[in-house]
């Protein structure tokens, strides 16, 4: 029975070889390339959002994405999280019309938004959204970075992944070819192009830059608590490392005479 360990090892080795080799071939049809790793300001244990980039991203969302995509979980007041001043927030909110209760005749009326208003929805409901988009439903973007496998890298991959379909690929009616999207057929036409956005801060408006900016904004929208979370986390982790040391020293002292 001494051999048990060795054939156990062999079995484990066989598994670890067989699984990666065989598994991908089985599921080839649905496989999509893993999104290329991008360099994000917010990755890593000390990363935080590049606020200028996130603000440019909000500009892109407002000018481009918001025509089809809602962000129902966000309110204008929360833009303070990417460094927008209260006055700017008021101006941004006042520029949109939102439902503002009933008039004296009991009819619903619209009025200018306030900082407490949630982001304006492009469509009143899902049915209207589908009618306007060839049957497809543009997903809400409030949590989009958390809601997709691959997160920010994946969203960036989709935004920059438009290309002509490879020869012989049969595209569905109204569908676009996308290198990153699962199945490679996406209903959304390419939303961002180079030199499409006029940045007021002189940032070069390449497609790469635009995609980076809007993804930074979306990442913030999905995890607005991230910066505070990491800051608290560093302090708590240090405290616990210290406590582990002290506690271990106490334990050694208490046990000093036992062995």
């Amino acid at each position, binding site marked *: *029975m001494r051999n*048990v*360990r060795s054939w*156990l090892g062999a*079995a*484990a080795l066989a*598994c670890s070889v*067989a*699984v990666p080799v*065989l*598994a991908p*071939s*089985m*599921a080839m049809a*649905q496989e999509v390339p893993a999104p290329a790793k991008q360099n994000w300001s917010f990755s890593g*244990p000390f990363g935080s959002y590049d606020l200028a980039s996130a603000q440019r991203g909000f500009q892109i969302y407002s000018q481009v994405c918001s025509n089809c995509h809602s962000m*129902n*979980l966000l309110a204008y007041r*929360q833009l303070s999280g990417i460094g927008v001043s209260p006055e700017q927030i008021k101006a941004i909110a006042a520029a949109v019309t939102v439902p503002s209760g009933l008039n004296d005749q009991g009819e619903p009326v619209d009025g200018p938004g306030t900082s407490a208003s949630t982001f304006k929805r492009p469509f009143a409901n899902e049915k209207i959204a589908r009618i306007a988009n060839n049957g497809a439903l543009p*997903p809400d973007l*409030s*949590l989009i970075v*958390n*809601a*997709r*496998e691959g*997160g920010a890298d994946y969203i960036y991959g989709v935004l920059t992944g438009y290309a002509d379909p490879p020869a012989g690929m049969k595209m569905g009616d109204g569908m676009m070819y996308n290198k990153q999207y699962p199945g490679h057929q996406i209903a959304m036409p390419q939303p961002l192009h180079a030199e499409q956005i006029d940045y007021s801060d002189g940032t070069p408006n390449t497609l790469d830059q635009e995609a980076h900016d809007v993804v930074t904004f979306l990442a913030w929208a*999905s995890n*607005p*608590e991230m910066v505070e*979370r*990491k800051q*608290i*986390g*560093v302090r*708590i*982790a240090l405290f*616990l*490392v210290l*406590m*582990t040391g002290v*506690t*271990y020293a*106490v*334990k050694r002292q*208490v*046990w000093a*005479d*036992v*062995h």
Partner: protein
Amino acid sequence: MAGLHKSEFANPVVNWVDTRLPIFTFMQKEYGTFPTPKNFNYLWNFGALLMVNLMIMIVTGIFLAMNYQPNVATAFDSVQHIMRDVNYGWLLRYVHQNGASMFFIVVFIHIFRGMYYGSYKAPRELLWMFGVTLLLLMMATAFMGYVLPWGQMSYWGATVITNLFSAFPIVGGPIVTWLWGGFSVDNPTLNRFFSLHYLLPFVITGVSFLHVAALHITGSNNPLGIDVKSPQDTLPFHPYYTAKDSVGLCVYLLVFALIVFFAPGMLGDPLNSVPANPLQTPAEIVPEWYFLPFYAILRSVPSKLGGVLMMFGSIAVLFVLPWLDTSKIRSARFRPVYRQLIWVWVLSVIVLGMVGGHRPEGIWVVLGRVATAYYFLHFLVILPVLGKLERPLPLPESISRPVLSLGGGPLPGGATAKPMEKV
């Protein structure tokens, strides 16, 4: 007054209370002077960690419930309201969410320790069975808790798992309708899951007390798996094991904190960030990682009823483990064959976990079946037979004997005490 408890505490207030309700004497006896085998390793931390984890879950859960709304129209948004607008709501939610994973990591290690050192064997069978009951309650609680955020995986997980009961002939359909309170997973389901998710942790607390009470009747097992023979074998629980448990607690909290603050989404499924949609099934329905081995067993059996029975059987078999293992030797240290085969069983569980996370295609089907077969083979064939065939290594005379034979000085505490009366 004759029956009144005589308290030995010097502090007059403590003495006054203790005379009327001897709670301090009780604590002193069960957690102060409680004679505990002196040779525990750090694997014996995990029971205490589970108690801490349970308290963390209950407290964060109570505060989350203050802002959560168990209604299909508002549940998803109310969770995001907690994440975005409630002060430190994100912290409460991430601790609770990842606390479930921590709970299962700790309980799996705790169970493994029990299996490796034979803690389920006489006279601790009932103690073990309370433990398996706790595992079942934890699984039920975790499952219902996962439904509450009302994301896609919440909804479809609930649909798939409740549909398991439809496998039973005749009563299956009505049971599922009864579980749902309707004809699909819907508002009544969410409401009752919230109610039960709030209730079950208190049931777990109650059963934990039974678990600990049973432990304090039989006394703890130890890495040698031999009985305590004399006071030299034990140490008072405090300060020795309070100090040792504190070390484990700090390390556990550190791991917990690193996950909560730096990778809170690591163990979750992205699809649960998408609100539940009864009209669209996700491409792959994957349960949380701690259910994957059981999910793999379910899918490895080609018959619906068979799969359900095998999955429940994989837990049920743990209940009868004390009688399946025919060896009288507790610790794997003295069982040369079992010591290796237990790792094969662990491997089968890990393989099942991997299988559960992949689509049942190709190699995964084969692996799933082999691992399922081995899982049951281990309990139903290997353990009963091995107990008869295996030749154990010689057991030490007592826990403290190796120390004494090395000529160490007088042992602290125990050395001056009278020999322990054998109960």
